[in-house]
């Protein structure tokens, strides 16, 4: 179970992970400490493993930098639920093993910050325990599910190679 961090439309990659750090090599912890720095300074301090982000339209537009996904993943975020994702951001999410779930506007509106939520990736079920409702989404297709379960596409390939 995790808590909801609630954000609006058009959150760009620059506020998720500031451009000034893009070419700096950093540890996972340091990366997590800059997550959402310019949008919500309370996030990095208070985020817990298993929390989820619920956002509006066009989450993650802007640059193709993978750190904008990675920083949230290493901060403990279990899934991002949004009305829509920027194309490259969506691909980066899956390929780095962070589930990106798309819901309709009306369903997104049902979530508030700090709601306690369970996300069952495998069966495609989101349970909001605070507000007592359940939303279903189509589970990821086979290969994509394998990538997510492995924690990313590179890890997935690694596993394949080592199991051979």
């Amino acid at each position, binding site marked *: 179970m995790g808590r909801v961090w609630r954000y609006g439309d058009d959150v760009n990659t620059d506020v998720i992970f500031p451009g000034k750090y893009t070419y700096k090599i950093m540890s996972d912890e340091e990366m997590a400490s800059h997550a959402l720095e310019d949008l919500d300074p309370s996030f990095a301090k208070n985020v817990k493993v298993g929390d989820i982000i619920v956002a509006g339209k066009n989450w993650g537009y802007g640059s193709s930098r993978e750190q904008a996904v990675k920083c949230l993943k290493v901060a403990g975020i279990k899934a991002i639920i949004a009305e829509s994702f920027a*194309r*490259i951001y969506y691909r980066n999410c*899956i390929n780095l093993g962070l589930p990106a779930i798309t819901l309709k506007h009306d369903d997104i509106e049902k979530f508030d910050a700090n709601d306690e939520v369970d996300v069952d990736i495998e069966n495609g079920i989101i349970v909001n325990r605070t507000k007592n409702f359940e939303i279903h989404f189509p589970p990821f297709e*086979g*290969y*994509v599910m394998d990538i997510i379960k492995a924690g990313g*596409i*590179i890890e997935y*390939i*690694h596993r394949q190679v080592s199991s051979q």
Partner: protein
Amino acid sequence: MGMTLTEKILARKASKKEVQPGEIVTVEPTWVMSHDNSAAILLKFKKTGVKKVWNPKKIVIILDHTVPAPTAEYANNHKSIREFVKEQGIENFWDINTGICHQVMAEKGYDLPGAVIVGADSHTTTPGAFGAFAAGIGRSEVAAIWATGKIWLRVPESYEIIVNGRMPKGVFAKDLALHIIGNIRASGAVYKAVEFKGETIKNMTIASRMVLTNMSAEMGAKNGIIEADNKTEAYLKDRARKFYEIMHPDEDAEYEKRYEYDASDLVPKIAFPHTVDNVYDIEKAEGIEINQVFLGTCTNGRVEDLEIAAKILKGKKINPNVRMLVFPASWEIWKEADKRGILHILADAGAVIMNPGCGPCLGAHAGVLADGDKCLSTANRNFKGRMGNPNSEIYLGSPATAAVTALKGYISDPREVL
């Protein structure tokens, strides 16, 4: 429910009866393409631990971005690619003497109706001109395909762009592309499949159709696509590398949006610096003094583009204040243009004829702009610093506009001379 052309291709490749927008499918691409960036991709590939690529016959590598190598670093990159190609037995390797990847993909018969083509270059939307599904992907994803042979794709929603009417004299596919992008805007079709239809498109040459699918990337589209027809088949006759099947969208296919344009009232267009959707009628740009004219690229470096420029410049001299650079998009084009005397006419007029490749398009090779320079380019992008100098300006226009501008020394309307 009926399916759009993009949906049909993805469904067939994924061995499904039907797919819907938003659905994720996993497919084995017909071809996976990369260029000089293969040097970076092969390092990622090696990190996966996989020793042999999944299928060396389906990997296409074309050296075009910095050819011949301008620095030791680029030379070493090329070298590492050549070694990798040998080691892996990759047959579809085209070295620096071939041309720009998107042009070579067409000429060498990889762009086929119904194919699924992915490439590590944002203008991999180009093969859509042949009725293929074609999209740009990231470098890590190319490395992953080399290793596994698979890619997952989210089925995009489709837009239909219908163009009817006869294009007026002096107005070309490039002007239409700029007009549409100016209207839909740079983010107007993000992630969408854009399907071009209508009699104007049917009447276009293959080269002109490629301008539209090439520039689909500039409205954010995942892919641009045009139904194949007998012109496509004629082009592919002695080129196609594989059996292919022409697919058509269903009559009752559902499109998220529809845009309609009348080509008969179009005028030449110019995209002003520094965004491709900053488009105006040529009238507003007329008189802007230009230092360099760049004719070429995967957008407008084909025979018909060089030919129209030669028609305008025949027997004339370009303005002495202008440097005109001509980069045919491939050696096949270079040779054809040479045979027809086009290159000679352009050289006589004072143009510098360069070797096929991307040239100054991305600022990593010859033809870089000086501070304060203004360039009229036939490329697809005019972002700040794109041609290697952030203190310069790039205006985009058609090859005819480029030629008449070189002649006059300032941006001019080609309708006055055609």
